[in-house]
């Protein structure tokens, strides 16, 4: 068989090449393992903590916290992750823990890392606030395309799926868990917070970031701060932020609020002092925020999102004419 390769026809060689390519693709797919490891944080409650990073080809978009509650009437999933693959792996991770079927998949808001895993679940289980459903319907396609650019192959096959079930604020009892659905806004136009009164866990969505600088593409800082002061009044034992480690107390609420206050002050002063946007980008980061993950990058993004509005306000105070 030494000379075998020379005896192979051109067609056979092409076939072998094709098989080899197929194998490489399979291996590639197998490599796309988020390594999801649910951590128990309270009775029947698990969290999958994402990395405190920006979206990348390395993390496949797993920068977000997803969670699930196992009740006697099925599993409640809170946020479905950044991709179809994440959603599928989340389902498998849940199935390793319980035989209960997933009955609810709730999206806290319409950002892609919180809903692009929806596709992996039964469409009838998907639920969100009306504002979130509308946001996914109008912006989901663009978010998805953008995630392909930022996370590459991890996104294979992912399509945005908007929930069909609209949630309203108020109490919701599922399988013995007394949930309180709290409809707020500020991070986006619709931010859902879920307080599980049975376990004392507060699922804060992206209204709260922990040791990771907040993102602001759809932010209204004043409304966000008002939402945070509402959260500060709740009593709970465990806080699950949208991004960053789970906390035993309300400290991440204050941390997020302090960041937003600093951002707001910095941008308002800059606009009142006539700074050009490039000068605002070059301003130093307040020392207390330098320890937050990717604070410099998020500050730069926030200047891009928010400074034009501050600028407009500062200039409108001046002379307007035609």
């Amino acid at each position, binding site marked *: 068989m030494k000379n075998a390769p020379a005896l192979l026809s051109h067609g056979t060689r092409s076939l072998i090449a094709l098989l080899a390519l197929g194998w490489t693709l399979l291996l590639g797919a197998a490599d796309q393992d988020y390594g999801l490891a649910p951590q128990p944080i309270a009775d029947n409650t698990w969290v999958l903590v994402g990395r405190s990073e920006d979206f990348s080809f390395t993390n496949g978009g797993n920068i977000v916290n997803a969670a699930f509650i196992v009740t006697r009437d099925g599993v409640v999933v809170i946020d479905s992750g950044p991709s179809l693959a994440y959603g599928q792996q989340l389902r498998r991770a849940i199935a390793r823990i319980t035989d209960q079927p997933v009955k609810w998949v709730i999206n806290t808001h319409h950002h892609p890392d919180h809903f692009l895993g929806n596709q992996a679940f039964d469409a009838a289980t998907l639920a969100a606030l009306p504002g979130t459903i509308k946001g996914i319907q109008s912006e989901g396609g663009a978010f998805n395309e953008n*995630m392909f650019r930022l996370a590459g192959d991890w996104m294979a096959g992912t399509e945005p799926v908007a929930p069909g079930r609209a949630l309203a604020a108020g109490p919701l009892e599922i399988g013995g868990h007394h949930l309180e659905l709290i409809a707020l806004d500020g991070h986006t136009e619709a931010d859902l917070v879920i307080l599980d009164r049975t376990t004392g866990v507060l699922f804060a969505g992206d209204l709260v970031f922990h040791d990771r600088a907040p993102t602001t593409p759809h932010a209204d800082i004043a409304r966000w701060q008002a939402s945070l002061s509402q959260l500060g009044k709740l009593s709970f034992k465990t806080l699950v932020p949208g991004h960053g480690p789970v906390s035993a107390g309300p400290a991440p609420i204050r941390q997020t609020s302090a960041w937003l206050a600093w951002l707001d002050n910095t941008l308002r002063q800059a606009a009142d002092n*006539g700074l*050009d946007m490039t000068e605002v980008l070059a301003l130093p980061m307040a020392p207390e925020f330098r320890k937050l993950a990717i604070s410099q990058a998020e500050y730069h993004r926030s200047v891009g*999102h928010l400074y034009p509005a501050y600028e407009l306000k500062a200039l409108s105070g001046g002379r307007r*004419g035609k």
Partner: protein
Amino acid sequence: MKMFRTLAALAMLLAGNLALGAPKAKPAGDPLDSPRWTDMRKEMFPAKARVVFDDRVKVTAPLTAENPMNVPVSVDASALTDVREVLVFADFNPIVRIVRFEPQGAHPGLGFRIKLQQSTPVRAAVRTGDGTWRIGGTWVNTTGGGCTLPSAGSSSPEWQKRLGEVSSRVWERKEGGERIRLRVIHPIDTGLAPGIPAFFLQELNLADQTGRPLMHVEGYEPLAENPVFTLDIPAERASAAYRVSGRDNNGNTLSAEVDK
């Protein structure tokens, strides 16, 4: 032979620099390593013009532009003397020219916003009184994304009523002189989107109270919608009031007082 010519060229360049007393000017080799530089050199400058790279021409822009429709750029050529005109362009933009300005009495610098199609060098070419073009620049990468996506654009029909309206404000500068910031309401369409013709701010002039010119700006399609300009006036040209005038490529004119 080739080596000898290179050495000779190098010697001449060094001599040239010494004679000019401008040790920072790098006459050859694009510091931004752009594959488009040779084309840019041909397209933007006369063959016989002296074109050099010069660190004293500062172009500031974010390394990564969050919103490619609204990328802040500022140009500062105040380390040079006798600046006659400044041409700003982006090698990889479908429309390369962005803005051209003549700092007739203002500081030789300008802040503005641009639209970028893809990652590209953004450059400022400064023509000084000796006819030399001095070039500075920086790469800008454009991405966006997810929680990091740009804000949803405000595609409001409001501009039709307010076209050419100017918001402005004047600040005293710690360094002396004054800073003026202007925002002009204008959609600035590139003409590259199907069915929407090019519609852009072609000219903007700033003069002092007596009408003496301070800055002449020529805009091209890649300026951002509702552009904001930042410019500085040296103490000796500060004025009790300023006047802005301008027009777009459709002949709409604008005129506004900038008083304090």
